[in-house]
């Protein structure tokens, strides 16, 4: 293994909800450690149910939130050291793509103004002509072109087209990392495939890595090199996508995989789907224990440590499903 490109070191984010005095603490991201290598561009998917902290994790990587504990290191530069932080450099290297493309663009602004702003403000292009060239080239890599986008407003594009334009906007700076938070959630099946195929193609073409946040496990399986499963803010499983999804080690990953509506494999009538509603859980226990079909006394008492079954995998479980 070579150098790490992005490293999360015990990252924690706590939200305080309600008043200062009687407010509750909500640990949205709980002591997450993860690393992406720099040898080759990779696609890392983060999966988990609604509210498990995926977007919060993204926002910390994008520097929109400061972690309450832990640190993030990008290309050797620590987020916690202000001297190492150059906002312009950061915006060149890390670019976001959001879920709803109609929210990424204001309805009253022409779409191409965003593209020109990115190209000119960050000093990627010296003048308008150079910017045009760069924008056109980038739009073509996502199957569009500057002439087809010029002078148009967001409502004149379909959801899929607009999402491709926002991917192009992110690519203009030739970033090293694109953080995509649910980029295909609002898009239908066929267009979804076009977008995730585009990720694969861009990964090779521009050597860009992706952090792909999604509910959609089948596209995560299809497109990613690595998968991280989050449960209530905790990283519970991490490893190569195929291994994890074909042969989950954590019962929660198994539960997620069993819930995917697969074609060709009908659901068994009454397979228990442990419910997802909030239940009180002891802070010191495994957070998944109340829903886990394999939970034992141990699980309800102590939080499991991260262990390494196999070479490349990590799992936080007292009774992993693989040894």
């Amino acid at each position, binding site marked *: 293994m070579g150098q790490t490109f992005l490293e999360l070191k015990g990252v924690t984010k706590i939200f305080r909800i309600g008043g200062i005095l009687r407010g509750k603490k909500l640990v949205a991201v709980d002591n997450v450690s993860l690393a992406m290598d720099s040898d080759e561009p990779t696609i890392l998917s983060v999966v988990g149910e609604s509210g498990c902290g995926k977007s919060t994790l993204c926002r910390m990587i994008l520097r929109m939130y400061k972690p309450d504990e832990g640190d993030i290191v990008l290309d050797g530069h620590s987020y916690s050291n202000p001297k190492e932080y150059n906002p312009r450099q950061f915006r060149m290297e890390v670019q976001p793509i959001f879920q709803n493309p109609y929210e990424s663009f204001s309805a009253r602004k022409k779409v191409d103004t965003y593209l020109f702003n990115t190209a000119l403000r960050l000093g990627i292009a010296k003048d308008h002509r150079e910017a045009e060239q760069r924008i056109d080239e980038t739009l073509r890599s996502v199957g569009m072109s500057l002439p087809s986008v010029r002078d148009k407003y967001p409502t004149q594009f379909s959801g899929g087209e607009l999402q491709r334009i926002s991917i192009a906007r992110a690519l203009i700076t030739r970033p090293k990392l694109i953080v995509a938070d649910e980029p295909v959630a609002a898009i239908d099946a066929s267009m979804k495939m*076009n977008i995730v195929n585009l990720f694969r193609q861009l990964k090779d073409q521009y050597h860009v890595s992706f952090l792909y946040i999604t509910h959609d496990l089948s596209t995560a399986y299809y497109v990613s090199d690595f998968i991280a499963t989050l449960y209530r803010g905790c990283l519970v499983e991490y490893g190569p996508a195929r291994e994890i999804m074909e042969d989950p080690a954590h019962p929660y990953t198994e539960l997620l995989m069993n819930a995917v509506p697969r074609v060709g494999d009908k659901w068994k009538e009454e397979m228990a789907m442990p419910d997802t509603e909030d239940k009180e859980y002891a802070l010191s226990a495994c957070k998944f224990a109340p829903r886990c079909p394999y939970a034992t006394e141990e699980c309800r008492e102590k939080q499991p440590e991260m262990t390494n079954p196999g070479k490349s995998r990590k799992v936080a479980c007292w009774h992993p499903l693989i040894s």
Partner: protein
Amino acid sequence: MLKIDHLSTSYRTIDGKVHVVNNLDFTIRDNEIFGIAGESGCGKSTLLKAIYDIVEFPLEIDSGRVILSGEKDGRPFSCESGEIRKTWWNHISYIPQAAQSVLNPITRLKAQFLDSVPEKIRERESDQHILRQVGQYLEELDLSPDLLNAFPFQLSGGMRQRVIIALATFLSPNVVLADEPTTALDVVVQRGILMMLMRLQKQLKNTIVLVSHDMGVHYQVTGRMAIMYSGSFVELGKTEDIFRSPIHPYTTMLIGALPRVGDRGQKIGIPGQPPALTDPPSGCRFAPRCPEATERCRCEVPAFREVKPGRFVACHM
């Protein structure tokens, strides 16, 4: 039974009429889960609105009608577009797309529910009595009757959707229309809700019309299904048969594009865009994207015909 009889609808816009449902003619039977799949914007929600009789400006019915018939409490009934409204909740109910956000977040669920109970029933029975019955029904579905006292914002999206389904089925309607009931939810919650719908259907032996653009959901839940493209059906049949041997090239490509766990082989989305409904191509609407299109496809609209018993396809090939 729901008979959709040569139904065409359109939206009135400043640029003229946009035809969104074109001459649909098919029947949804009693005691089945019928699925409708298709790309975003193909007209799935519009069709459900027309069936449910919410035909309000700018939507209008250009021709044809919907006939809802069946038997409830031993009494046969039949009504058609224009009258279906009067049977809301009793014979037919509707779970709109993004229903979870349709609920008023700051009004208690019980008040919102009572608002939707038909006048006739509220005149006959006290609110207390109705709420007690609803509470019992929620319990039968493994939901807490206390939910009725909750405000929607206090519930998760999945819980809100369960309550909405419970309320929509409380009066045991003959037909339940569900528009993308699980699209915004994560897989585990989605599975719970789909299982709840399937269980309810088995119990009530009624009809559920399920709209979803997730083909996996159709495979798991529906018995028969239709594939919609640009305002018309291109294929209809038993769900199993459609997945096993799709006939229309659009269906074939749609199924071929689905990623599957265990198979990382390259999958390709359908190239191109669906046609603008304001300016549809003359012949088959899928022809511009179809790898097998011929001259005939580009000029002549293919008829939606029965190619095998129970299997309908609109394709020249």
